[in-house]
């Protein structure tokens, strides 16, 4: 039950700057998720909060206390480490109860809590196993249990569910949310799983290359990304982008043109801009009524169908001879998501529209968002 404030935190490892000038306030009781590409500085941020790493510059507050120079044990934090870090010389029970034993809880209390935690992570029968005798997911669950037996002010969880299967992950997700509610603890969470980020978080903090990009509730990040990076990073599969420029009467690009009043949306004619449309906002022409404000029809050609079970990712080429590259979608490619029952096949020509209401416009130079609806 404490807020966490990072005030101008910078952390450099020699020349390598892992985190730069980060200002972040996590409110008391909030569930904040850090997301960002691999190596962007998420774990470093967590370690700074935990006190495992001294920031090169800046101050960390927990509650009102300046904890920058406080040892980890006095910060009232519990942490699930990305690399799990079980004590290999202790069995599961000892691993989980370690923090409690350090605090000299009495035997009964420890047992009660360990049992409860083991139940939450579904490891009831395994308390006397050694870490080396467990599967990857089981180890990860021990790490989670080790953190949750304690009742700290702040939970730091670095990818706690990475090695769990879908079902267990959902189970754990629910459990963690419930725990969060029950204990009213501040949680700072790192995940690469969009579903976790979206469903669990009060707010998401998007980090790129050591810099904070946006801190907002999940749907805000999803629906109104502050900049190109956030737009492309949040959402899976990611947004379709078209690079072009703002004209006097709309947006102009090689493949897609769009008419609107630049002034109204706050765009400056003549500037380079990028149009972004999420795959689920693209519809086959025949479904165009599902779009709030359908755009003009776009002619395309189905390149690849990727059936996912509950949906089919459909990769379109806007021109026959567009070069496809394995490195994400290139210009002239468009991804949309179709219902598996939809009757399409690879190579087929189709007509699609997108929902202008859900189209995003970004300044290509500054990468800042200009508008989140071009209706």
């Amino acid at each position, binding site marked *: 039950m404490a807020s966490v404030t990072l005030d101008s935190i910078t952390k450099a490892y020699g020349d390598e700057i892992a985190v730069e000038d980060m200002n972040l306030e996590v409110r008391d009781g909030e569930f904040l998720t850090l997301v960002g590409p691999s190596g962007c500085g998420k774990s470093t941020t967590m370690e700074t909060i935990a006190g495992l790493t001294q920031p090169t510059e800046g101050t960390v507050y927990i509650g009102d206390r300046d904890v920058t120079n406080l040892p980890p044990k*006095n910060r009232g934090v519990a942490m699930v480490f990305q690399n799990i870090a079980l004590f290999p010389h202790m069995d599961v029970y000892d691993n989980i109860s370690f923090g409690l034993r350090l605090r000299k809880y009495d035997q009964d209390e420890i047992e009660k809590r360990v049992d409860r935690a083991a139940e939450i992570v579904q490891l009831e029968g395994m308390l006397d196993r050694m870490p080396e005798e467990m599967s990857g997911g089981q180890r990860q669950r021990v790490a989670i249990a080790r953190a949750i037996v304690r009742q700290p002010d702040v939970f730091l969880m670095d990818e706690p569910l990475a090695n769990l299967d879908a079902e267990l992950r959902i189970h754990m997700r629910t459990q963690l949310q419930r725990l969060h509610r029950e204990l009213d603890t501040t949680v700072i969470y790192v995940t690469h799983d969009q579903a976790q980020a979206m469903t669990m978080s009060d707010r998401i903090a998007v980090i790129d290359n050591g810099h904070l990009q946006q801190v907002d509730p999940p749907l805000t990040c999803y629906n109104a990304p502050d900049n190109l990076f956030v737009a492309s990073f949040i959402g899976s599969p990611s947004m379709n982008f078209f690079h072009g420029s703002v004209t006097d009467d709309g947006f102009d690009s090689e493949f897609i043109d769009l008419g609107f009043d630049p002034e109204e949306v706050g765009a400056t004619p003549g500037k380079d801009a990028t149009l972004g449309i999420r795959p689920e906002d693209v519809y086959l022409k025949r479904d165009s009524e599902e779009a709030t404000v359908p755009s003009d029809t776009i002619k395309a050609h189905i390149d690849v169908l990727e059936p996912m079970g509950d949906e089919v990712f459909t990769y379109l080429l806007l021109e026959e001879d567009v070069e496809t590259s394995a490195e994400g979608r290139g210009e002239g490619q468009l991804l949309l998501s179709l219902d598996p029952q939809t009757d399409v096949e690879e190579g087929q020509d189709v007509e699609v529209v997108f929902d202008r209401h859900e189209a995003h416009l970004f300044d290509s130079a500054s990468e800042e968002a200009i508008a989140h609806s071009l209706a």
Partner: protein
Amino acid sequence: MSSETEEASTPLLMRPLNWLETRGDAVFAYVLLAPAFLLLAVVAFFPLVRTFQFSLRADAIRSAEPFGEFIGFGHYQDLLTGNASLPQQFLDLSMETPILQQALFVTLAFAIISVLFETLIGFGQALILDQEFRGRRWVRVAIIIPYAIPIVIQAMIFYLIFSPQIGFGTEFLNSIGVFESNPLQNTSNSFIIVLVADIWKTSAFMALLILAGLQSIDRQLYDVAKVTGASPWQRFKYITMPLIASPLLVAMLFRTMDAMRIYGLIDATAGCQTVPSMSCLVITALNQTRRWGSASAVAFLTAITIGLVVIVYLIGLRDSEAGVT
């Protein structure tokens, strides 16, 4: 259930520790080093300073105060030129003294040969002890146990084996022409006996340290290496060797230093006259002739010699993958 903030009332004992921890690495380090350096200061640094002072004073063999007037580096000069008033010489480049009667060469030869063999044998032993097999517990004890033998006893065993009356060793080796009839009186024979005795006992030291090094390697790395296609030899070369390099280096370093200080074993087998090591000289000067100034100077020369060897070591091994520091 108490929330964790309640434990803000830290026990009194912990407070200095907490304070310490926030001081940054350097202060923390210095405080933790304090006990070690305090102990060393009393037992080592202070006496060494005194001993150094002694080494600059003349020997006063006929007064209660064992140190005479200040003579600067006179003892050192005598020692390095073969003019020391000691029954054996430290170094006599004129070679009037046979080479195996010069403490420096005896000691260096002993250190190099013994450490070489001990490392090889210790390595072999450690590799065996690292395996899983039935009865390994007892094999391990058997291999380590020579190290537990007091030097007096170790010396007694080899002394007796090679004593002309009791031991069977001389008779046999003499008959095949390897040793003379009184090997413990012969410098080169005795040198070999001392060497063998030392290797017998001290290989276990190397074995222990190497074994410990082997055991702390994460076994998973071998799995990776196996799948990547490494043969047992390659696993040894690329995983085992680099990862035990530092324990091995430490072991060799300390063995070398220890070998260069050899005294007890020699004293109790062949005797310091027959195989005069550097430490032998110190003790002879100290106990037998009561030339404490000379003894102190020999001690310092011994230290300097060992220091030089250690430097050669560190330079030679600096390029190898794991340095000591």
